[in-house]
């Protein structure tokens, strides 16, 4: 039986893992590669690294970090932030990343999803989407880019469907209203998108307790739940979270 995935997200700034609340007030937590090793040993099913300042500083993703990660962990990992074109995608994949997450770039240049899928396969192309509640949009949610700073005239559900048609192989859906607040995932839009696309949806933003993950993986129809604060600073372990999910009869990988 296909298992529900627990994905740990590492936001990286100046070669340190960092975590903020609603994309602000970040504090440094540690070395990304060392933390990746710990989470992998602790039972994380997958890791995601976001180079959160690469875009703003208009520099490429830190390939040295990608390489060191690939030499040390043997579970799938995705990198995002600072991907400017297909050449950058290729460099990240050759450095050892399994998937590349495209967010602002995909909104500006949707054709990059198709080019990436053709060149590397859609399994390498993750659409990262940041969304915010906005009743003016049909689905009730609006797409925002530039790490939450730029509202786009794009409906979240429309964009998800279009991106999959263009070549995205997975969607990592991050709700800004709930990010880092630890009050639960944004259930409505997660379920709406997960039911409307044929590719897996990773729910992100808002996990504070195991019930939040259980809910988004059942009611929210997500294939995977992404956590950051819970394991970075919230006192939870991946093993502990998965044992509790298993106790709630969710299929997870226990080591």
């Amino acid at each position, binding site marked *: *039986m*296909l*298992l529900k*995935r627990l994905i740990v997200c590492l936001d990286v700034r100046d070669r340190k893992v960092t975590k903020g609340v609603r994309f602000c007030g970040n504090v440094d937590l540690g070395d990304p590669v060392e933390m990746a090793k710990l989470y*992998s040993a602790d039972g994380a*099913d997958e890791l995601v690294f976001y180079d959160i300042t690469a875009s703003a500083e208009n520099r490429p993703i830190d390939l040295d970090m990608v390489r060191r990660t*690939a*030499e*040390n962990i*043997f*579970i*799938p990992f995705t990198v995002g932030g600072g991907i400017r074109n297909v050449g950058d995608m290729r460099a990240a*994949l*050759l*450095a*050892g990343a*399994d998937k590349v997450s495209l967010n602002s770039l995909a909104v500006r240049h949707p054709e990059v999803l198709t080019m990436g899928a053709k060149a*590397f*396969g*859609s*399994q390498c192309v993750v659409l990262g989407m940041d969304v915010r509640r906005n009743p003016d949009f049909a689905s009730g949610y609006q797409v925002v880019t530039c790490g939450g700073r730029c509202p786009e005239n794009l409906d979240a559900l429309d964009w998800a469907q279009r991106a999959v048609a263009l070549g995205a*192989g*997975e969607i990592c859906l991050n709700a800004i209203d709930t990010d880092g607040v630890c009050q639960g995932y944004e259930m409505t839009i997660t379920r709406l998108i997960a*039911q409307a696309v*044929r*590719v*897996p949806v990773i729910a992100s933003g808002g996990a504070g307790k195991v019930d939040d993950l259980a809910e988004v993986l059942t009611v929210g*129809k997500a*294939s*995977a739940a992404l956590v950051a604060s819970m394991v970075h600073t919230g006192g939870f372990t991946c093993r502990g979270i998965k044992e509790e999910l298993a106790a709630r009869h969710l299929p997870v*990988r226990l*080591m």
Partner: protein
Amino acid sequence: MIAILDYGAGNLTSVRLALNHLGAETLLAASASDAAHADKIIFPGVGSAASGMQGLRARKFDALLADAFAAGKPVLSICLGMQMLFDTSEEDGGIDALGLIPGVIRKFAFADFDVKVPHIGWNTVEHDAKHPLWRNIPSGTAFYFVHSYYASTANASDAAGSTEYAGCRFTSVVAKNNFFATQFHPERSGKAGMTLLKNFLEWEAPKCC
């Protein structure tokens, strides 16, 4: 020396790094002559079957693999590498593959929109047969999968492991003499995958026939 066949089908970085992490010496083989003297062969692959077969033939890896099969050289095939061992694949409008293992490759077809294709993520593998590569890996262990097509073996005796996805049980591991092939990615399957790769490095495969 372990030769990793490089025929333009996907990224070989992770499989090479995983083997190096286990202390194996690896060689990215771009031609059949590069791989001819290797002790063992890794036949990886991500991408489409048609372009994969084209890449294999252009580098004469089809003959290399047939020779390895006859000579008893241990080969580990991964993902698309496993699928291309079979007779035919439904992918790309239907193509002929290597024909080393009897059976066909079919596409997952589900009516229910909730069932995602590709099949991506960790799924359990139940053993269909005992095998030295299953050493220290219990039946029911989870491995990482990414694929839209699956193997349907003609001979049940070639199946070494199977996996269920949304009600479809398929052969996820085949073993025939000196060939062992997995639909999942051992190099991305954490501790269990590394155990399987280590078992492959230590495996003394039986001679064919």
